[in-house]
């Protein structure tokens, strides 16, 4: 059977001819896509964990100040919110992120000892804390990171607490969190009489009403009794908070820089390749190849680099995400699941990077005069 030549086969042979340069270019674009996969995957998984945090506890609405990061609400609003007829339960809470050790960060919650939010936790040892006592419960990931068990002392911000329970949380954020009595958290954070917000569980949805309409009605009713505060849907709070926005911004910003460097790498490789193959391009033009076909060949090579770099990058990003999920500093924020949509997006970005990077070298190669190109040394 005679060997068949296709355009893609021709492109592959051209790339394989300079193996080292091709492999180094692949490493460059692979690192860029790997950074994209890991960083954007990290930020999206962070957002997903926030969403699950609210959905697993059954919170429908969060009553907060306008500012998520430093929300501070007078605790007296709790009674006003509880008095709204649509509200089944309203629980004050404080939320913060603290350095427990130089290596370990944790989300720290202050709850009342009878809040409905305990429903999403499963105790693997010990039990709930009691209001007014210096007790904490900790997630199983954090317990593992810090090698703590029930009965152990637990240092936080210069105060000593006792671990009274270890739980398994439904989310990575919960599994890496510390929860302590609201009054203890108020002392620790110098927030006496204040809370970060009030988590609200609404009464069951009336049969004749849509959920969207019901939630809007509830938001309006709550905001009417606590003027100046924001009754935010839990799902909105999970996806549109400053932590998530910051994580997205850092991820996309860093990835954009990495992708730009990756594009430059492919562009450099293709420009060098076109320069080295000037005479060969002249031959192609001499034997009847039109400009667009020469462009297609060069763009096929660049796109091939982008595609292979994408595959390499997805592997590297997946590995990077797994590493982050094991590090004590980051494992409370990360799940290692990568969605098919994110993988497709990464591959598409990598291929588009290849196409963009190949555009100028392809244009340059295609517009060489055949005679000038044939004379090229």
């Amino acid at each position: 059977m005679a060997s068949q030549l296709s355009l893609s086969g021709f492109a592959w042979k051209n790339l394989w001819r300079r193996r080292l340069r091709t492999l180094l270019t692949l490493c460059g674009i692979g690192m860029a896509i790997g950074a994209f996969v890991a960083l954007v995957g990290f930020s999206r998984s962070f957002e997903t964990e926030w969403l699950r945090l609210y959905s697993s506890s059954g919170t429908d609405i969060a009553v907060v100040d306008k500012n998520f990061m430093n929300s501070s609400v007078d605790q007296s609003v709790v009674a006003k919110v509880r008095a709204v007829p649509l509200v089944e339960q309203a629980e004050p809470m404080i939320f913060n992120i603290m350095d427990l050790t130089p290596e370990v960060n944790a989300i720290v919650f202050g709850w009342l000892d009878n809040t409905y939010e305990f429903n999403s936790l499963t105790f693997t040892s010990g039990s709930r804390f009691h209001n007014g006592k210096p007790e904490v419960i900790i997630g199983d990931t954090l317990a593992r990171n810090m090698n703590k068990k029930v009965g152990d002392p637990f240092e936080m911000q210069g105060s000593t607490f006792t671990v009274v329970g270890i739980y398994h949380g439904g989310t990575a954020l919960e599994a890496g969190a510390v929860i302590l009595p609201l009054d203890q958290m108020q002392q620790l954070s110098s927030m006496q009489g204040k809370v970060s917000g009030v988590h609200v569980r609404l009464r069951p949805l009336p049969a004749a009403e849509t959920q969207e309409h019901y939630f809007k009605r509830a938001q309006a009713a709550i905001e009417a009794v606590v003027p100046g505060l924001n009754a935010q849907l839990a799902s909105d709070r999970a996806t549109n908070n400053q932590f998530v926005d910051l994580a997205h911004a850092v991820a996309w910003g860093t990835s954009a820089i990495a992708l730009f460097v990756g594009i430059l790498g492919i562009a450099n490789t293709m420009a060098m390749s076109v320069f080295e193959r000037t005479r060969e391009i002249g031959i192609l033009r001499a034997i009847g190849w039109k400009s667009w076909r020469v462009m297609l060949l060069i763009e096929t090579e660049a796109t091939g680099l982008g595609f292979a770099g994408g595959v390499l990058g997805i592997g590297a990003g997946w590995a990077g995400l797994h590493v982050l999920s094991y590090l004590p500093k980051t494992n409370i924020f990360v799940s290692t699941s990568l969605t098919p949509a994110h993988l497709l997006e990464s591959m598409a970005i990598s291929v588009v990077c290849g196409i963009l990077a190949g555009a100028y070298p392809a244009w340059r190669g295609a517009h060489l005069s055949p005679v000038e190109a044939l004379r090229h040394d």
Partner: protein
Amino acid sequence: MTESQTHPQLEVRSLRKTYDDGRIEALRGVDLIVTAGEYIAISGSSGSGKSTLLHLLGGLDIPTSGQVLFKGIALSASDLDDYRARQIGFIFQAFYLLPTLSAIENVQVPMLALGLHANNRAERAEALLVEMGLNHRLNQYPNELSAGERQRVAIARALANDPTILMADEPTGNLDSVNSARIMEILTGIQKKRGMTLIIVTHENDIANAAPRHIRIRDGRIEA
């Protein structure tokens, strides 16, 4: 009466080609008529303009002034790609095979531009290489072939698009006498067998004198 009966296959009128902003005149008003099926040798000393004339005839370059007409129609810059792809087969002194491709793949390259099916491309390339006596060298790369074999692959490649005109620029310039004779035998055989036009640029008198029509170029002009 058909177009080919009323017009010569190739005609050039007052063809001029200058380089370096007109300081170098490679061709100084050349007129030439080529009839379909002719075998023409163009000779001249180095720098006489013979290769420039071949490049202009073959649509590799555009003239500074004057016209190249194919079957009575003047070729414009936008026609040249199609003209080269469908009417012209080029053979060069340095063979110009693509080093990453095997012999059979090199021969398929012009056919990629014609939209032929992959099976047809491969079969046609194999047939052409067999015709060149290279049936045992199909999958060798250019650096694994002798100079004579490389030029035979280049001839097969020039025939791949089934051209009406074969143009050879010093096709034996890099070959020893045995291989030169073999290549000329192949080229003239093809010209006779297929009835195609063959235009050879050469500085070798033996080859030039053997052609039925011999054109001498000197200082950018055809000598009478």
